[in-house]
């Protein structure tokens, strides 16, 4: 019999609905995998096996009563620790929120529970989603389940910030997980671990109840093993929410039903500025392979230009820290979270001591950059200039989409790097998001799908960027690649 933990979202949903197995059996199988991997991979901050069983029992009871089971009926998932979950510790992987148990549920997580999903636990991540390797968590690094094929056991980064999500899905600890993407935090970890992940158009998924990092960029999305599973889960997560001022008031398309890998008549843009010096040769080869696959699917491939590409990353590292410095002002040791009150300290000293003790080094770095670029005398030179450049980057995409339907590029310039390899150089770490950030700045839907393995046996991802609201076009191109890549590799279990 196939192991239940080898099944994805669609297979579990259909198997539970068809009575091949019960939702409780599925939840128990994944709970066991989660427990067995926790010491080695550290993918979860909190595990919630009882919540997974409880949701599964409810699904089984609904099936017995002949009621509909929901889009995610019987599917247990991992929840990134950025989503507020009622009564379950929500920390954004920070010390300052350690012990925080929200009194409310985020819109996206509530939608998933309403669709029949259950929670296996809260997934580790980079602290406040700031990082590209999951090495900034207060609760320790997540270790990728992947290892290089050289026989060495060097621990590798699962990517970030959704590194717990990527590690857990690829290690078969959950069939799918939520992620959030501010500048690549769904796509880059998905690429590093050989799974799929989509960041929808900005505003598709409500930000209400998601711990805020950079509000004009933050967007939730699913991470799963294949394109169909992403489509199913995104349907469950998306939708208008009056509690989020930037939520899109649009109906949620039936992305799963609309899946179609026939790309005849479609035009795919290949941006020449993404052929950057320093990009790994295997990454460039997989990109070329991806172009051939999309041609084989019937698409016409067109060379395009996105002239301001090289300015996207520096613009991002002004805009995102600026918004973060503002958003993270709320952590003051008064209303929730950590308080550090040295003897005799006044209110201002309490704020400063609390924030010094509660934030990690990368979070402090970004708050200080953000505070500086927003400060009097520097605002126009940095922040306003960056927002103007952002307008130009969005315009580049708009011009390109007058010609093409989707854009194909690598997800990241390298495969997974080793834990510890980049931590001493913040700039080198930032550069790993060079291909992911432009679509974030323009609010566009973008996904990563596995393309193959590099010469070290590590997964590489290909990225598809689409027009605003055209998640379907992105998913379909992803499906065309998936069908031709035939990616079946998975990490060999060593934990």
């Amino acid at each position, binding site marked *: 019999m196939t192991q239940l933990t080898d099944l994805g979202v669609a297979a579990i949903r259909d198997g539970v609905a068809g009575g091949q197995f019960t939702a409780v059996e599925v939840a128990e199988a994944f709970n066991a995998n989660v427990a067995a991997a926790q010491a080695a991979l550290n993918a979860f901050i909190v595990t919630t096996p009882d919540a997974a069983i409880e949701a599964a029992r409810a699904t089984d009871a609904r099936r017995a009563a002949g009621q509909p089971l929901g889009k995610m009926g019987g599917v247990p998932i991992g929840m990134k620790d950025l989503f507020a979950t009622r009564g379950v510790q929500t920390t954004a992987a920070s010390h300052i929120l350690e012990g925080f148990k929200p009194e409310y549920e985020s819109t996206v997580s509530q939608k998933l529970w309403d669709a029949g999903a259950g929670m296996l636990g809260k997934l580790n991540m980079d602290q406040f989603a700031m990082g590209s390797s999951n090495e900034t968590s207060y609760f320790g690094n997540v270790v990728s389940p992947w290892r290089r094929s050289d026989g060495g056991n060097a621990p590798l980064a699962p990517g970030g910030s959704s590194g717990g999500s990527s590690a857990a899905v690829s290690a078969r600890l959950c069939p799918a997980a939520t992620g959030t993407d501010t500048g690549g935090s769904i796509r880059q970890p998905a690429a590093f671990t050989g799974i799929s992940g989509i960041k929808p158009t900005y*505003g598709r998924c409500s930000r209400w109840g998601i711990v805020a990092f950079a509000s004009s960029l933050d967007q939730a999305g699913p991470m799963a093993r294949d394109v169909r599973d992403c489509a199913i889960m995104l349907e469950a997560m998306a939708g208008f929410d009056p509690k989020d001022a930037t939520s899109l008031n649009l109906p949620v398309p039936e992305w799963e039903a609309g899946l179609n890998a026939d790309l005849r008549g479609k035009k795919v843009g290949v941006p020449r500025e993404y052929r950057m010096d320093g990009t790994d040769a295997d990454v460039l080869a997989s990109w070329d392979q991806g172009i051939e696959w999309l041609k084989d699917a019937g698409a016409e491939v067109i060379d395009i230009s996105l002239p301001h590409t090289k*300015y996207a990353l520096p613009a991002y590292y002004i805009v995102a820290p600026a918004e973060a410095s503002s958003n993270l002002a709320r952590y003051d040791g008064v209303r929730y979270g950590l308080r550090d009150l040295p003897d005799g300290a006044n209110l201002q000293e309490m704020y400063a*001591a609390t924030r010094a003790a509660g934030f990690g080094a990368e979070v402090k*770095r970004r708050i200080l950059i953000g505070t500086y670029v927003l400060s009097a005398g520097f605002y126009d030179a940095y922040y*306003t200039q960056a927002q103007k450049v952002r307008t130009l980057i969005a315009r580049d995409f708009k011009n390109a989409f007058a010609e093409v339907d989707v854009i194909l590029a690598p997800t990241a310039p390298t495969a997974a790097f080793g834990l510890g390899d980049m931590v001493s150089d913040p700039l080198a770490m930032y550069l790993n998001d060079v291909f992911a950030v432009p679509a974030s700045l323009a609010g566009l839907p973008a996904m990563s799908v596995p393309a193959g393995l590099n010469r070290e046996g590590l997964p590489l991802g290909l990225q598809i960027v689409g027009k605003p609201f055209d998640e379907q076009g992105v998913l379909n191109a992803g499906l065309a690649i998936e069908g031709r890549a035939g990616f079946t590799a998975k990490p060999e279990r060593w934990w």
Partner: protein
Amino acid sequence: MSVDTATVARIASLARIKVGEAELEAMVPELNGILAWVEQLGEVDVTGIEPMTAVIENHLRLRDDVIDADPLTGGGVRESVLANAPAAEHGFFGVPKVIE
């Protein structure tokens, strides 16, 4: 533009983060590295370009002017509001004395 120790100390004070001397010294080159790198934005011609305000065109909505329309964000939930406070006292957030 680059920052010196005094500037970083001032930024840290604005950001309400206590930073020790050694930490301050370490941060100066790190922040200067990042600032020198973002400086390249200055070479982009932005004549006549408006700064981005919304990535996806949207209009700001107003909610109906109804008290407690959403019970979760309405009133009467003091216990919930205070549930995670590190020092809730007498139904309020407790802080160090601010008036001498």
